[in-house]
């Protein structure tokens, strides 16, 4: 009897260990820090940290993407000695924000492209139309424009891994969210790369919201436009005249 109980205990223990081992090897969800970015009076951008756990042999590519929309652009060209607008171009299905965070290694840009991730994926989804023939390098021009605003980027080496433990490793990616980011929700997607192929996807949402005085000013400017405009004028007049009075005592003559 004792022998049977011992065998049963061994089987149970082995089974539990296997179950717990399997659980430990499953990829956990994304952790964002912060989960909400508050845009207040002294907001000048924010650092965002994204972390999680993946299997020791895997890699991860992280994408932070804003909502898709349509933007209108002007295309410049040379006419005689001058550079001027020669046509208008409309780009559809383009996200307001697109940041791609990649692990260390020169070839990750190419790998991301092969896997259908990164900015080239935006290029494939983009629909163009225009009053003039749209140039072949329109996406490069668009990317350059967005990069100058810090709203698009692909950062190689942004994803770092910590030491392997129990067949798993911890990843951490840090990036700067620029002050020009629009308010709203952003999708954070981490694609696990297993043996060179895209595998499991982990998702989370980042919220960018205005708070305090910034929120108050925006509300006033939107909901009570005349009051806002007149208040702006009155304060400017008062400030100007106040300074005039303050300077009066030491005033000269022409």
């Amino acid at each position, binding site marked *: 009897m004792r022998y049977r109980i011992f065998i049963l205990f061994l089987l149970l223990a082995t089974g539990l260990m296997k179950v717990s081992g399997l659980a430990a090897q499953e990829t956990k969800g994304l952790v964002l820090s912060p989960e909400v970015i508050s*845009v*207040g*009076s*002294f*907001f*000048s*951008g924010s650092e965002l940290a994204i972390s999680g756990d993946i299997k020791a042999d895997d890699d991860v590519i992280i994408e932070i993407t804003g909502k898709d929309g349509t*933007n*209108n*652009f*002007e*295309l*410049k*060209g*040379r006419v005689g*000695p*001058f*550079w*001027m*607008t020669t046509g208008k*171009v409309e780009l559809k299905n383009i996200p307001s924000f697109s940041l791609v965070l990649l692990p260390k290694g020169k070839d990750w840009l190419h790998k991301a492209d092969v896997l259908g991730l990164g900015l080239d994926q935006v290029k494939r989804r983009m629909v163009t139309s225009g009053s003039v023939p749209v140039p072949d390098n*329109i996406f490069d*021009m*668009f990317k*350059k*424009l967005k990069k*100058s*605003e810090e709203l698009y980027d692909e950062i190689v080496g942004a994803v770092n891994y910590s030491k392997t433990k129990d067949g798993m490793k911890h990843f951490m990616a840090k990036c700067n969210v620029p*002050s*020009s980011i*629009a*308010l709203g929700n952003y999708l954070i997607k981490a694609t696990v790369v297993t043996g060179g192929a895209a595998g499991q996807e982990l998702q989370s949402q980042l919220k960018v919201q*205005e708070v305090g*005085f910034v929120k108050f*000013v*925006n509300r006033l*400017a*939107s909901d009570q*436009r*005349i009051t*806002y*405009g*007149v*208040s*702006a*004028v009155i*304060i*400017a*007049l008062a*400030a*100007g*005249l*106040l*300074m*005039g009075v303050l*300077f009066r005592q030491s*005033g*000269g*003559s*022409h």
Partner: protein
Amino acid sequence: MPWYIYLPIAHHSVALPLIVGLGFVVGLLSGLFGVGGGFLMTPLLIMFGIPPTVAAASDSNQIVAASASGSYAHYRLGNVDFKMGIFLLIGGVIGGAGGVQVIKILRALGNADFLIMITYVLMLGFVGGYMLIESLQAMRKNKVSSPVQFKPKESAYAKMIKSLPYQMNFDKSGIVLSPVVPLFLGTLVGVLAAIMGVGGGFIMVPVMVYLLRMPMHVVVGTSLFQVLFTCINVTILQAYSNRTVDFILALLLLVGSVFGAQVGARLSTRLKDDQLKIYLAILVLLVMVKMLYGLVIEPHNLLAYHGGH
């Protein structure tokens, strides 16, 4: 103290000392020359990442403070011809309304931005060049005083002005003129100012000096008086129609500009009229060269947001 501040309407963070410093420089020009400074400030703000529409509208808001401060300073010095200012203002309001319609037509026709830029270059080049040459000639004449004084021949323009009806005294400016002239010129400047998206001070000053023959020190004060009301009108209209007035940006700019305007008004009392004209001419020509450079040099990106400058 945080060095960065977030602009709620522009949705952009800016360095506090930079914006206050820009305000000071523009205020200095405002007090010194009687120009609003919009023609200089708006491109600078765009350069620092502020959206063009927000830059132009918020600049108008800060010019209200700078020109109020400058107008008050010049009023105390007795340099504001209110009578002339009101006629120019009425003309400016009429011209501004007309100019808004002109710009609508230009935008519908396409390439309005290029037309605006080229108008700027031509206007600034003509005004700046003429002011510089004329002032240099005047300074030379003052140095080499001729023993024999010739009576200058009356020009066709002067004869035409004198023949207009309702001639009246503008005591502060020391001229006799028909109100038709400031009304007409004010309208013309209003049209140009609306097309160019500025207060019009840098066009109004040469108009008052050369076409209305007003003394320079009265021109500065009167121009500021006119710019003040133009910008009050523009600020309210922009806040209501386009929601592009960033009050925080304007407030930061005006902190610097009200100080600058006072310093400018004081400096102007130490400079001679011809010196003031030369400095303004150089400034106008520098802005013209910068704009011309922007038109002939290939842009770093051939793609730009629709509606940008």
